[in-house]
């Protein structure tokens, strides 16, 4: 089947190998590029680098917490570590990774030659790069440039009044504010760009109801970025006004309110977590069908559920604030809205199972990660439901149970889905297959490490261990659990090492992939691997959700059934 005729005359043009040109020139090309594929890859590399940096910070934290009354790092350092870890991972690891996928895939999948605004696209990328650099510059510049500087230590949601200039002297917090502000502008630019691309640049025949689910989910994500990231930008500006012009927005001494910052932050903060998870859903929704050899089960309701999640997620933010003493009515409302989200999310899970049902599942590493994703996201979601029951949250909130919950979603869900995406699209991007053996090593090491770390992390939470403490006393009975949790990290590190090895090794030694190694159905597989700068020599025309299926099965094409 793989040798079926593509819609268009097969590509003969293959981009000249970059190795053959002087290094400087290659570098220059990458820096000045406006090509969505190059930018996508740079987003990805950028994300991986920060994943490792944030991971090292996490590893140090775990080393400190492995035993009771440990003196590896000082309290000040520990507070900086978790602040930088959280901020880095959310804004400079997870977001670049998902934006990378959106950048690379959306234009290809809608059959366009590039983003709607290529230059804006480059601008957005470099903005987020500067954001990250500014944040990390704080390690040296935090207290003003006179030698000793240090990173912010206010926590990734930087509750007032800890950020007021009276409690946070020096500039460390300013680096936090400005770093996120700058990268935020970049993200808004990307969102605008992707949305315009999906609305305006779809190839002939690709109606909204024929868009690949990946494009749909990224569109909803980008909508969320527009409406949810902007409030954070606004709040950050207010905080700057407080810190530099002596304003009183969050200054509790002058009648300002600490609670309104919480509202502003979480109005961003909760949609943010869906901004991260929807692209993960998007990847899974592309990979599972191809490896189950079946179309996605219930396309329409999948789209509906995605949109529903998008809107509901804008109305649940105060579930992060169950313990601040809201009225019983407010609490009840947010319990309702929060648990309501499990309905559309559940629909997705069931539809993925429905897709696997009755298929012929081929277990390449990408699919393995998808199955792991299903199980782990299920669990993570259910712990979310426990937190959503306000009274239960009065006990669990701000404990290690919460930390376990969201790492379960983020690593068990998002990161695993991203790994699946890597194994699925790497052939398209490089023209080489990733090594399945190294991949399986990566998979098992990381999954084992993940469960050692984050399954057992729930327990100290249930035993009353609060988060953000740099040490604890042996008498509390948290020691053994923390030790197991820390041991798990070693396996995760090894897993990541294998991933990096695989990426590098396969680039040089991997088996050639060809245009369509997985016998897949969406447009990106209809061009060469790697695709030429202009993606498609001739803009394709599609008649169904699976154009390449129609092509390979003229006897019963999809459009008959849609």
């Amino acid at each position, binding site marked *: 089947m793989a040798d079926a005729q593509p819609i268009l005359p097969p590509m003969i043009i293959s981009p000249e190998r970059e190795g053959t040109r002087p290094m400087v020139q290659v570098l220059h090309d990458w820096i000045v590029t406006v090509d969505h594929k190059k930018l996508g890859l740079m987003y990805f590399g950028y994300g991986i680098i920060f994943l490792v940096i944030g991971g090292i910070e996490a590893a140090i934290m775990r080393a400190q917490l492995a035993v009771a009354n440990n003196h590896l790092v000082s309290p000040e350092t520990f507070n900086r570590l978790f602040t930088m870890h959280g901020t880095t991972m959310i804004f400079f690891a997870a977001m670049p990774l998902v934006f990378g996928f959106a950048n690379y895939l959306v234009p290809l999948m809608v059959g366009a030659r590039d983003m709607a605004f290529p230059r804006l696209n480059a601008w957005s990328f470099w903005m987020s790069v500067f954001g990250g650099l500014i944040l990390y510059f704080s390690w040296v510049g935090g207290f003003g440039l006179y030698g000793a500087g240090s990173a912010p230590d206010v926590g990734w949601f930087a*509750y007032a009044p800890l950020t007021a200039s009276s409690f946070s002297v020096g500039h460390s917090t300013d680096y936090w504010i400005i770093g996120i502000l700058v990268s935020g502008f970049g993200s808004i630019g990307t969102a605008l760009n992707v949305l315009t691309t999906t609305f305006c640049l779809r190839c002939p025949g690709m109606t909204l109801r024929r868009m690949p689910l990946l494009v749909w989910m990224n569109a909803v994500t980008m909508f969320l970025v527009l409406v949810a990231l902007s409030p954070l930008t606004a709040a950050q500006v207010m905080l700057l006004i407080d810190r530099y012009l002596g304003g009183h927005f969050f200054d509790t001494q002058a009648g300002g309110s600490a609670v309104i910052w919480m509202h502003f932050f979480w109005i961003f903060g909760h949609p943010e977590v869906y901004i991260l998870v929807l692209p993960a859903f998007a990847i899974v929704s592309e990979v599972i069908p191809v490896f189950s050899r079946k179309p996605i089960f219930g396309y329409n309701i999948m789209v509906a559920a995605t949109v529903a999640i998008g809107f509901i997620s804008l109305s649940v933010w105060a579930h992060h604030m169950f313990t601040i003493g809201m009225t019983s009515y407010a609490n009840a409302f947010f319990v309702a809205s929060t648990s309501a989200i499990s309905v559309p999310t559940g629909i997705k899970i069931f539809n993925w199972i429905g897709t696997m049902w009755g298929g012929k599942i081929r277990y390449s590493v990408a699919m393995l990660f998808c199955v792991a994703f299903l199980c782990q996201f299920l669990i993570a979601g259910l712990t979310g439901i426990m937190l959503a029951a306000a009274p239960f949250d009065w006990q669990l909130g701000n404990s290690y149970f919460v930390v376990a919950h969201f790492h379960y979603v983020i690593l068990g869900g998002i990161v695993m889905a991203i790994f699946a995406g890597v194994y699925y699209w790497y052939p398209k991007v490089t023209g080489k297959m990733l090594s399945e053996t190294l991949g399986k090593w990566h998979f098992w090491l990381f999954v084992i490490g993940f469960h050692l770390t984050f399954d057992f992390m729930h327990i100290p939470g249930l035993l009353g261990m609060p988060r953000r403490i740099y040490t604890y006393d042996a008498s*509390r009975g948290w020691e053994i659990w923390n030790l197991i949790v820390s041991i798990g990290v070693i396996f995760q590190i090894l897993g990541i090492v294998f991933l990096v090895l695989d990426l590098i090794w396969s680039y040089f030694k991997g088996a050639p992939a060809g245009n369509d190694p997985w016998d897949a159905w969406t447009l990106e597989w209809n061009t060469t691997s790697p695709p030429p700068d202009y993606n498609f020599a001739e803009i394709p025309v599609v008649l169904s959700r699976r154009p390449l299926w129609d092509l390979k099965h003229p006897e019963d094409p999809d459009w008959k059934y849609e």
Partner: protein
Amino acid sequence: MLAAFLLTSSGLLLAQPAGPSPIPSIFDPHSTPAHDIYHLSLFVLSICATIFLVVFSLIVYAAFKYRHRPSDDDCEPPQIYGSNQVELAWTVIPILIVVVLFLASARVIHAVEDAQFPPDAIQVTATGHQFWWEFEYPKYGFVTANELHVPVSANGQSLPIHIMLLSADTDHSFWVPQLAGKTDLIPNRRNETWIEPHEVGIYVGQCAQYCGTQHAKMLLSVVVQSPEDFQRWVQEQKAPAVMSPQVAEGRRVFETNACMNCHTITGTIANGRFGPDLTHLMSRKTIASGAAPNDEQNLRLWVKEPDAIKPGSLMPAMQLNDHDQDALVAYLMSLQ
């Protein structure tokens, strides 16, 4: 996986010694609000466990049953695009579950948050400081720190304690898992919580909202006593500090150093509010909110070098010569 840690935790749950324990497990409640939460949590846990078992087995079944076998021919499986009935089913069932979850939670929210108190309920005002707790008993007119004493509600008699939560600086959170869920202490905002302990003993907890460098060592303990012991304790606390002539020297040191600007000792000129009230310092088992046992060499060490016990605490190291040091510690030790 979820099952795994559910079992482990319920195992712990059974392993819990009845009564207050140094391990503040939320599954070992000893006070009315904690009990209400406990029952809800078991209910929610069981629902989630059921959902998990069902969906998890579906995933595993599909993953194994429908795997590609080498024996298979290479033709594609039948292409199914969806099924309205099935999709409707797995939309409606979750909706019902959600409704149930909501009602259950709403009931407990109401029971705990909108509880009414008898006018004679014991009032305590807890104020969070970086990084210690101030407890004021307005009715009895005295202030203490870090160790909250309350009467037990046993044999039919109910003595709920109504706690007003304030903050002097940043956000904190009052959390004693075995007695009640946590509630934050937020500057210029009045929060409330309440407890009704059923068993005598010492219950441990700690600040659960990041509040700065020493958030980790902002521990607190609640000493639940029989009503009689509690009254005795109240009487002791109301009395002004003892003035034994042997330690007059130490008292002079205290009153002539910065100590008096930050600490209160009733009956002396020291009336600072920045640090804990020291009037009955020795009635407390720990110093620096649970950072160290309250004994002579810890006190000496604390006054000499607070950072040795609690790096980053807001009490400065007092450069005192050995003579003053000894006198001062002797004086502190006398503050029964």
